[in-house]
């Protein structure tokens, strides 16, 4: 996560590890990139009203980031356009040299899932899904799309999932952890039903503009606080999914938490188990200790990887979470990119490395 571009030695091909990168960001040059798949009404809506969300600034994030386009300084395509907007450059800079066997796309703009106008949001999601296919997954078979859905209109979301089911351009459903309500609540269950029927995991990448302060303490001033509060979104999300009984209701549901880190998982699990045991009478539908549901149903991507003061403590963490539940991710082209060659500051044994860099994602997403 440096702000300068270092001239790094290229790793020789024979030492290269084939990886599955579970978080890559394709970018649009502007919302009008979606016009081929938007009705005329919505094309005009974008020009006239723009996006309409629950925050003060209409077109950018409320906490300005540390780098232009939240991206690596070297990720701007020489041909123009923002980082992540040009496939050949993504191939040259990331997919080829880093041995990416598969890359999971996470399309963060447009914010179809946080629009207050539900029809507009659903139209944006559908168009962005078409865009993922036409511009990315059909141009490079290594890339796999995520079906964007607007969680606040669950019926439309379920339809969007059903119409893409079986299409292997897509390997998961995408929603933001910050929804109007905690995502375990019943209003969202039609989405889980549709995902299970389509046999697709749900990937939740940090994002969402829901109007709630980024912490229960209120709105923070600084980006470091906002950045950290993504962990609390994930904690609230996991708590909600478990305590609402989502995994009792949908025993085949698989959840992937993307870019929320993972060091917090064991402590949250211990806390959930302790207080669930004390307050079970409030949640009789939660039949087993929360840790069991988490262990069975939830996966975590690695970036931005937490860096223990003593690097060996990372091994404890992997042991406690389960080495089969971690999915390597780079977050390309963003500024806090984790380089697969340097990400682990402690040696991992080969079998474990193979699982985290590739095997776990392969099994989860049903890839060859």
């Amino acid at each position, binding site marked *: 996560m440096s702000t300068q571009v270092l001239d790094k030695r290229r790793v020789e091909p024979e030492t290269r590890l084939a990886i599955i990168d579970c978080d890559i960001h394709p970018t649009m040059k502007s919302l009008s990139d979606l016009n081929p798949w938007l009705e005329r009404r919505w094309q005009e809506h974008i020009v006239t009203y723009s996006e309409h969300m629950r925050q003060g600034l209409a077109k950018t994030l409320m906490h300005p980031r540390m780098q232009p386009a939240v991206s690596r300084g070297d990720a701007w395509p020489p041909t123009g356009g923002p980082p992540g907007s040009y496939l050949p450059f993504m191939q040259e800079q990331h997919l080829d040299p880093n041995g990416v066997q598969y890359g999971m796309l996470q399309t963060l703009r447009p914010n179809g899932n946080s629009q207050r106008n539900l029809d507009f949001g659903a139209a944006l999601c559908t168009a962005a899904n078409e865009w993922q296919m036409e511009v990315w997954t059909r141009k490079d078979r290594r890339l796999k799309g995520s079906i964007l859905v607007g969680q606040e209109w669950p019926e439309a979301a379920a339809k969007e999932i059903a119409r893409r089911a079986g299409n292997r351009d897509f390997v998961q459903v995408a929603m933001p952890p910050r929804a109007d309500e905690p995502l375990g609540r019943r209003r969202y269950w039609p989405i889980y039903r549709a995902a299970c029927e389509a046999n697709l995991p749900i990937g939740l990448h940090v994002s969402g503009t829901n109007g709630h302060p980024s912490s229960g303490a209120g*709105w923070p001033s600084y980006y470091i606080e906002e950045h950290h509060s993504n962990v609390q979104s994930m904690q*609230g999300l996991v708590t909600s999914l478990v305590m609402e009984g989502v995994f009792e209701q949908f025993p085949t549901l698989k959840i992937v938490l993307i870019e929320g880190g993972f060091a917090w998982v064991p402590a949250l699990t211990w806390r959930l188990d302790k207080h669930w045991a004390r307050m079970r009478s409030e949640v009789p539908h939660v039949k087993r200790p929360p840790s069991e549901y988490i262990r069975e149903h939830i996966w975590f991507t690695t970036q931005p990887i937490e860096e223990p003061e003593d690097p060996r403590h990372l091994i404890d963490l992997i042991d406690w979470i389960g080495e089969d539940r971690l999915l390597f991710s780079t977050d390309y082209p963003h500024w806090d990119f984790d380089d697969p060659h340097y990400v682990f500051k402690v040696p991992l044994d080969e079998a474990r490395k193979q699982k985290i860099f590739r095997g776990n994602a392969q099994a989860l997403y049903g890839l060859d």
Partner: protein
Amino acid sequence: MTVPRGAIDCDIHPAVPSFAALMPYLDEYWREAVAMRGIDKLPLDITSYPAGAPLAGRPDWRPKTGAPGSDFEMLRAQALDGFGTRFAICNVLHGAQMLFQDDMAAAFCGAINEWIARELLDRDERLCASIVAPIQNVALAVAEIERRAADRRFVQVLVLSQADMPLGRRHYWPIYEAAERLGLPVGIHAGSMYRHAPSSAGWPSYYVEDYVAYAGGFENQLLSLIAEGVFAKFPKLKVVLIESGVTWLPAFFWRANKTWRGVRTDIPWVKRPPAEYVRDHVRLTIQPMDAPPSAAQLERVIEQIGSDDMLLFSTDYPHWQFDGEPALPAPLAGRLAEKILVENPLATYPRLEER
């Protein structure tokens, strides 16, 4: 493990038995207003600790009538005699801390503090207390802190972990200036004014979710205090996280330190990694520990915390965090236990040394 005699219990919860108990300590205006408006008949129970919830009162620590912690003799027999406690710090949680009306909140908090002095501290020398601060209004909070600080049995300022805005915001700095000047740590206790949902995920359905979310809320507060520069501005300030849970701390360190390296130009007054500020300025009470299933894992977490100075003994009486006598989890034995039980509390609360 069973606690040896002479420990310092840094978190017990006596409860104001009823609003009637506060009436003698209100001024004439508020006594009349409260009576006329029937406020003394309102149930000012707080959402953070429903009196009937299992967590709020251990079964053998519940009085036959009234809220857990409201029976003084029971509290004395169980929390003080029962554990052989040398000193115990009373942290009173009350609906006054939730109110929107600043003057009313300040009047009620003032009455609560007076009730604490007369009905708790005067009755048992082992008791000391936190000043219940009406932080809805910073000027009124500072006035209350200054008024109460003359009584050396008040050893700390008490605020809730989820207030109107993050606690590091400069809005609150007069409170820290007063606390530092008067030699009082600021105790941040689990609890919410419910101005906001417990997390950015929104309003959950169940109480157990709210309670679990406090731990994450403490992470946000620590980062707020650090990022805003509270510890740079008030180098002698001590902050105690009370009933916060403990085991989340290493993961907080690892993420906060890393992110700080990337974004430190946004907060240039933060000169050192966040973990270092926390180890220097922040202490945590041990109940609930939220311990992992095995002793070996807990030992490893303690190693990861990387300081013997940070943990303070607490029973959290009458909250139901453990059964029987073993208030101190077994892996915290030996030299570390001595630190937690006595030395760390004395180092954190200088006023205890005067007793």
